[in-house]
């Protein structure tokens, strides 16, 4: 793609010089009328033949690059579903049918072509990671594609780039490009079920999570919580952000999000649990934070 850009930039500069040069010639060098024949040749040659040739060759060159865009990835496929107002993510490893469920974050291996399949169950969203690629709409009832080949490691921020309702501006996510080995190790641990809570507070949080019915909407693999409505929380403690890229991943933020979800993200399906006493919120936060 970079080639196309440089070719276009170079060509545009050339034509700019040519046009200005002609203007300079016509006003300063020889500011007198030309014969009819010369005029006609200029119009036909410079106004019809030249653009026709240039634009046609550019079109052919550009179209020839297209199959590369659609070329399949190197094996890893990620389905991303934009939902009001978060991202459902599932990694499909090559040769494996069982997806690894995650949410609100993308992890990509460096130097590999990764295919993203995008859709939405509710309204049109648009996935945009400005440093990595252009935006691609996520359209209900249709699957759109985006192939990414990240060329350097780092953490980037992505957003929803299509107005999708009250909390559109609060629908973001983090993208982490990792060395292939680190990515493989991460995916391995992401695929594993949640580790049992270690300390007493987190254990109490785990019990509360089920007793309160959080598992009606959220899945934490390895527990009885199997709800498919909201984000999978199996490893929520290891994510780079909370509540779809809008809060830091810290115990206090967890407690605040649980208590005030409806206020923090207006219109979201997650109800506020502000009726819970602070110690229960702390226990839930401790348990979720421990889900590394």
């Amino acid at each position, binding site marked *: 793609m970079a080639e196309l850009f440089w070719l276009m930039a170079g060509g545009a500069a050339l034509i700019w010089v040519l046009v200005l040069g002609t203007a300079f010639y016509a006003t300063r060098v020889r500011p007198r009328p030309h014969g009819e024949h010369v005029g006609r040749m200029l119009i036909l040659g410079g106004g019809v033949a030249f653009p026709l040739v240039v634009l046609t060759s550019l079109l052919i060159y550009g179209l020839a690059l297209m199959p590369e865009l659609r070329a399949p990835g190197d094996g890893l496929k990620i389905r991303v579903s934009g939902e009001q107002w978060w991202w459902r993510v599932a990694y499909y490893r090559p040769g494996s049918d069982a997806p690894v469920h995650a949410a609100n974050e993308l992890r990509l291996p460096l130097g590999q072509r990764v295919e993203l399949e995008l859709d939405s*169950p509710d309204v049109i969203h648009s996935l945009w990671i400005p440093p990595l690629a252009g935006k691609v709409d996520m359209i209900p009832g249709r699957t759109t594609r985006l192939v990414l080949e990240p060329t350097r490691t780092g953490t980037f921020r992505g957003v929803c780039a299509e107005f999708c309702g009250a909390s559109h501006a609060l629908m973001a996510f983090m993208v982490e490009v990792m060395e292939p080995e680190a990515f493989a190790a991460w995916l391995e641990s992401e695929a594993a079920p949640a580790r049992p809570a270690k300390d007493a507070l987190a254990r109490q949080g785990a019990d509360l999570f089920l007793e*309160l*019915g959080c598992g*009606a909407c959220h899945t934490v693999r390895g527990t009885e*919580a199997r*709800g*498919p*409505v909201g984000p999978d929380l199996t490893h929520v403690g290891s994510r780079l952000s909370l509540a779809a890229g809008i809060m830091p991943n810290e115990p206090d933020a967890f407690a605040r999000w649980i208590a005030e979800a409806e206020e923090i993200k207006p219109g979201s399906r997650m*109800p506020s649990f502000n*009726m819970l006493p602070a110690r229960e919120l702390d226990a839930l936060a401790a348990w979720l934070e421990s889900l590394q």
Partner: protein
Amino acid sequence: MRIGIKELVLILAALAAGGLLFAWSGIFNIAASSGHWAITKWFLHYTMHQSVETHAMGIETPPLDDIAMVQRGAGHYATGCAPCHGAPGTERSPVALEMTPHPPTLVPHIEVFEPRELFWIVKNGVKYTGMPAWAGHERDDEVWSVVAFLLRLDELDEAGYRELAHGEAARRGEPLDGPVLAALGGAPPEPLAGCARCHGRDGNGRGTGAFPRLSGQSEAYLLASLLAYARETRNSGIMTPAVSGIGEGELARLAAHYARQAPPDTGSGPAPDEELVEQGRRIARDGVPVDGVPACLSCHGERRRPVYPALAGQHADYLAGQLRLFRDGGRGGTPFAHLMETVARRLDDGQIEAVSAFLASLPPEHATP
């Protein structure tokens, strides 16, 4: 003499001044004991009838022949209406008879009004008469229950009325208030008598979906619900008056009483429609993920917070009614009630009916202490 605009203004001003002077003088006798002149009475009634007729236009009448509605209406009538309007075998209170206008016995008047007009009167009350508006906000379903009962009132003799309004106590021929209820263990006699009229002393209701089954519910849920009615965070023109004036200590004892009662062994209601139950089973077990509806049993299953109600074996009509109230925003409830609002908003009428039928078909759980 010609009356011009100037004269007209003067006359009106004089009349207004005369009126004010009359009011200021205190000559008018405001005493209820003085009654109304016949012409005043006629004029007030005429105005009332016209107003009711006009305001009730466009109200749609739901089906009113369900016995559960009649029972619910009767239960409330006995405490909420009978003291002023009387009932078969019950005279109007002598205190009410000293009001101006007298609250009428209802039978001869009911047929004068359309059901929608009765609904409007019960819901809104009548100014300057002492007839109050309905105490529960957004509970038109309760008001219609009263209308359903009123439409049956003329067919009822004393025994029929007592059976409807007092349930088991009337059936056993017990006197309807006082010492009968002393045998009820720790629970305070009078408040429990009030509960038992509709819910039964065993909390199993009246065999119809008129009243929710209380047996098998946890003490925490029952108490939280009673407090919600008392504090009007749960809307009901029937339950809020019923619990008002009962102290929190007594409410706690009532909750404890009903939490001790054993539910019947089988689900409620008539043989359910298999297909409907199956559809409901899927919703209750798996939710409707495409619509963002979580599975009912993830919160209401066996491992639940005590303040969440048990739903297994509850009456289908009651469950469906509550889901519709949650959906339409008129329910309220314990501090956890808003969790249900967000879920119920994603259910349509068919899904509500299906899931209620399934839950009703389950054998009731026994409350864990």
